[in-house]
């Protein structure tokens, strides 16, 4: 069985995390293969929840697969698609099958996805979800009813060190920490100075931070420029480097950033994303 995320976060080791998207369908074979390939190379695997508002299988099923394969999962849980009742229900169900690590997110806007006419919920948001999960772990639902059996969670949230202005983000991060987050996974980082500025603020708390690194690809440059991916702010000089480059160069660029973040000794680990090209994640090392 893999070491728990909670233990890993306190071990002092520089952690490697990656995220996978569930399948759009019931076929888990490709995910099973990816999980097997990444096992041993990553400390923990995040499983996204309808990322960019595109409909996929719910992440709890893929988290269960990861657990069966001896890999520690982080289940992403978005507030966009469920109200406070369903979110608590899903938290309890996830806990009942051994999922402990939850990344609480408000969710990308529904307009980005393949169901733009869907009515988003946002009944509650990431801060409230953290509070709700913390309440469940303390044996009560979010309105104070006692539970018959309570979960144990390691709760996480997201933040964007590349945000401009940064100050409102920092106020929000403080609220997430106050609400119960014990680790942060950042949106992809490109500028070490921005990460440093972010870390100067969050270091005041005990929160563990996994800095985001994303494998960028040349055919996606127009999408990086036009804001297709919410929260992904790629600087122009990086776009120019990626534009027209080969895949190998793009892997090198991401790998270089990864090493820079690690050697700067700024944070507690890395969170790698490579949507559609997850088989390249380990090539970044």
């Amino acid at each position, binding site marked *: 069985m893999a070491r728990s995320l909670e233990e890993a976060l306190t071990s002092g080791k520089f952690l490697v995390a990656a995220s996978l998207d569930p399948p759009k369908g019931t076929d888990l074979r490709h995910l099973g293969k990816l999980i097997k390939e990444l096992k041993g190379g990553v400390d923990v695997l995040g499983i996204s929840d309808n990322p960019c508002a595109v409909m996929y299988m719910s992440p709890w099923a893929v988290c269960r697969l990861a657990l069966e394969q001896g890999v520690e999962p982080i289940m992403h849980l978005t507030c966009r698609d469920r109200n406070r009742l369903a979110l608590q229900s899903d938290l309890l169900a996830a806990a009942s099958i051994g999922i402990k690590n939850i990344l609480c997110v408000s*969710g*990308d806007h529904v307009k980005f996805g393949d169901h733009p006419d869907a009515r988003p919920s946002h*009944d509650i*948001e990431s801060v409230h979800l953290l509070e709700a999960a913390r309440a469940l772990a303390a044996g009560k639902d979010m309105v104070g009813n006692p539970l018959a059996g309570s979960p144990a969670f390691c709760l996480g949230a997201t933040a964007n060190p590349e*945000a401009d*202005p940064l100050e409102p983000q920092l*106020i929000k991060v403080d*609220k997430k920490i*106050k609400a119960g987050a014990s680790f942060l996974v950042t949106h992809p980082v490109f500028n070490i100075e921005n990460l440093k500025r972010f870390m100067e603020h969050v270091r005041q708390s005990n929160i563990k931070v996994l800095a985001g690194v994303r494998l960028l690809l040349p055919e996606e440059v127009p999408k990086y420029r036009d804001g297709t991916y919410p*929260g992904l702010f790629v600087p122009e000089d990086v776009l120019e480097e990626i534009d027209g480059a080969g895949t190998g160069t793009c892997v090198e660029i991401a790998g270089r950033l990864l090493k820079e973040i690690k050697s700067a000794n700024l944070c507690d680990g890395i969170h790698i994303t490579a949507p559609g090209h997850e088989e390249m994640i380990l090539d970044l090392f």
Partner: protein
Amino acid sequence: MIVAKRKPFEEIKELVSGSKKLLILGCGTCVAVCLAGGEKEVAILASQLKMALTLENQDVEVDELTIERQCDREFIEEANTRVNVDDYDIILSTACGAGVQLVSDVFDHKVVLPALNTTFIGVAEGPGIWTERCRSCGDCVLAETGGICPVTMCAKGLLNGPCGGARYGKCEIDPEKDCAWTLIYNRLKKLGRLDRMEQILPPKRYSVQQYPAKTIHEAYRRRYE
């Protein structure tokens, strides 16, 4: 104020097609201010309908009357002293949806049809432009957000924003749209009240919203309960 927009003309024409004697009932309050359903707009609509229906060989008499507002029974009932509502086969109301419904209630033996689509509660930013400002959520948080409504102005309605998608003060869904929480941050900073943003605003209490909602003033409770 309530902001509304006139329905497409073809849709209105279709609604009243077949009428022999039509009353266009205007409203002199919100919809007059947003140039959708006041006296002038009623006059324009009347001319357009007369012309268009005549071209289709429909013989229709179109009368116009604009009253103070259509959300108060006294003004609607008073209308019946200025025209004889029973003479008309269709009353085409250019009020907001609330007004259309009250006219339908008062004259519940008449066909009352809407000429407008009611869109939002908002303000005039300048001549000819109105923006939404309030969603009538019944649980106002403007005291905590420097007078900027996150329910209305934030695309996700976050009470503890911003999200990670805001960039250069713009919303992730539209680079032309301001991020409400960046506006709130700037306003609270200007007012020296950033401590309000540092507090976690609790989840919205949707139970305060009843559909349909009702308010009875304290002084009138005994009359209605």
